């Protein structure tokens, strides 16, 4: 096997059909959508059509989608944009301890600016309890932001229940669905949420493009100032080709959602069975009944994950764990720490995330599961060279 990519939750390879859709917008139709001439108009038409297509795929209206530079900007726009624009209603925000840093660090920034943030705990499966949201709610709560599906362990949150209990409260509800998109049904007109962040590169689209859905009536303070693009919500010349690519990627990923679900759950079973048959000491993290099918997070007790990831990379298997600090070394995952607290350090420090994608094949998965099991076994059985 040449190389096996099991890190699709980090980013995914772009679908060739997406590239084909994008290319004309680099060459022939390179115009600026704001220009009034025919070259600009062609670009404008492409952006409008792509936005319309995405709106239909997501069961919403085109004017409720704001294009951003990616999931991070969409999260920041929702959180900073809403909070700073609605301070008069209150300065309390509710989120969880397991959010992506794009949400978590945006909330930290709001704390710096005088807001109060409640970080809700999760249970051992990584789930937030709606009752916890309810009891954290205050009169001055203006925003609740809870991710749809967790990017490290895949646990899906009770978004509908939480959205419903917020129905009669002033707080608006934002969810980061970057990782969930493509795996779960996103019927935005029926989902009880006010804002949703999405990103293209997790669904075989281009990097550097995402969007924020905002329900009718939600107003946001812009983060970027300049031209009047995106109805003044987000200045800057549109990334036309990427927007076209995003739309195509969304279309393709939704077409095959159920097929992928079956396939990825089968892959997870192959991993589970192989590890079991080879007598590997392992434990799966996350909610096994309610998780994003492409994410499989496994702890291998007795193993240092830094060694395991390097050993896997040497075997040309790409997987990941938590997040790396700027000096390259791995930080213990804040998600797993929230799930297991102090008593579960071993589980936190030995956890690896495998995430599947459309280009993975059955042969690859069989081979990878075996290789991973062999490497884990070697590392688990090995004595330190110098004791």
């Amino acid at each position, binding site marked *: 096997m040449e190389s096996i990519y099991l890190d699709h939750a980090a980013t995914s390879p772009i679908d060739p059909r997406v590239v084909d859709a994008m290319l004309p917008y680099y060459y022939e139709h390179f115009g600026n959508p704001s220009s009034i001439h025919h070259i600009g108009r062609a670009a404008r038409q492409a952006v409008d059509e792509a936005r319309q297509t995405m709106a239909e795929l997501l069961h919403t209206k085109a004017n409720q989608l704001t294009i951003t530079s990616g999931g991070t900007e969409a999260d920041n726009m929702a959180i900073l944009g809403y909070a700073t624009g609605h301070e008069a209603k209150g300065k309390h925000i509710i989120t969880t301890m397991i959010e992506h840093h794009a949400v978590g660090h945006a909330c930290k920034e709001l704390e710096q600016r005088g807001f109060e943030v409640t970080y809700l705990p999760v249970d051992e499966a990584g789930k937030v309890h709606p009752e916890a949201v309810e009891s954290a709610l205050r009169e001055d709560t203006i925003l609740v932001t809870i991710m749809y599906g967790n990017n490290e362990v895949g646990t899906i949150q009770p978004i509908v229940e939480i959205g419903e209990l917020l129905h009669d409260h002033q707080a608006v509800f934002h969810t980061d669905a970057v990782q969930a998109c493509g795996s779960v049904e996103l019927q935005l007109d029926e989902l009880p949420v006010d804002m949703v962040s999405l990103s293209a590169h997790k669904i075989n689209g281009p990097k550097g493009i995402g969007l924020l859905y905002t329900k009718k009536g939600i107003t946001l303070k812009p983060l970027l100032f300049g031209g009047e693009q995106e109805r003044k919500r987000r200045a800057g010349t549109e990334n036309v080709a990427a927007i076209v690519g995003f739309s195509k990627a969304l279309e393709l990923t939704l077409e095959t959602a159920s097929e992928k679900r079956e396939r990825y759950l089968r892959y997870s079973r192959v991993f589970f069975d192989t590890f079991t048959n080879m007598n590997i000491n392992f434990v799966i993290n996350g909610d096994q009944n309610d998780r994003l099918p492409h994410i499989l997070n496994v702890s291998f007790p007795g193993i*240092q994950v*830094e*060694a395991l*990831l*390097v*050993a896997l*990379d*040497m075997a040309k298997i790409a997987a990941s764990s938590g997040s*790396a*600090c*700027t*000096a*390259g*070394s*791995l930080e213990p995952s804040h998600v797993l720490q929230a799930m297991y607290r102090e008593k579960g350090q071993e589980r936190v420090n030995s956890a690896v995330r495998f995430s599947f994608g459309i280009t993975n094949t059955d042969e690859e998965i069989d081979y990878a599961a075996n290789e991973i099991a062999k490497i884990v076994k070697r*590392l688990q059985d*090995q004595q*330190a*060279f*110098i004791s």
Partner: protein
Amino acid sequence: MKKRPEDTKVVVGMSGGVDSSVTALVLKEQGYDVIGIFMKNWDDTDESGFCTATEDYEDVIRVCNQIGIPYYAVNFEKQYWDKVFTYFLEEYKAGRTPNPDVMCNKEIKFKAFLNHAMALGADYVATGHYARVEEVDGEFKLLRGIDNNKDQTYFLNALSQQQLSKTMFPIGHMPKKEVREKALAADLATAKKKDSTGICFIGERNFKDFLSEFLPAQPGEMQTLDGEVKGKHDGLMYYTLGQRQGLGIGGAGEPWFVIDKDLERNVLLVGQGFHHKGLYSEGLEAIKMNWISSNHPTGEFRCTAKFRYRQEDQGVTVIPKSDGSVLVKFDEPERAITPGQAVVFYDGDVCMGGGTIDRVIKKWENA
């Protein structure tokens, strides 16, 4: 039979400096299967989120990409804290002057890191130390780097046969000048980078400020050997024997130096003149001895020794004791022998091993 280079996996400990960069380059040129790993041993992240390890790691990335080898990082902050930094503080608390570099080599680079590399299936680890390893009849010898001015065997004296058997020092046979030239010729990102100095975890910071964060200082008196009070000291741990700077004693005559520390009375003993007789001693006792050869000396022998890094070798007579410690008699009286520092023994180019200076023997007849 030895493996061919292309079948030999070598993990290079890369610091982001020029020496380890050239180490990786040399091995790659020799055809080895080379992997670069950066060790993060200390967290110095400041309020703005800046940490020096980030810049060093970015240099490692650039160099590894230039050479065409994979790179990774590993975190030994906990091991470093437990094995090196704790020792460092304990020694200062006990009034000695520790050598964290010797401990870092023994416990981190050639233990935690070596184990990590072995777990990954490496055949060897390599570092950018100026030293050489030679195998003679199944016995591994640690030899001085050929650049005598840069030789780092002083810091490697605590390594064992087992550690040396898996170690390569590819630039030990090169003069520093050649290492720089090689880095420049290959246009490595670190070719012009300044060599790091001082203790790694303190970096450019003020030593006194750093130490005071971790240990309470007990100010006391400065006295001459005759008991004349000359001023106040800020805490004995801030001073090293033979030190001149920072005493703040003015007046006529020769400059003042730290002669000794009286821990019981918390008094810093000072005296005038670089060659003050109180600074000189005729021997020392060393403990925690490591002999690199498996044939430990049992009887008295003559060799040369260093009592500090980059010192000229001095002629000594070594008298091993039954408890494993040694008495060392100097051919000529030595200035400012410092407890806590390493004494390292040499037979020509061979580093025989060393130990920790535990006691200074002023007069040999009192040994």
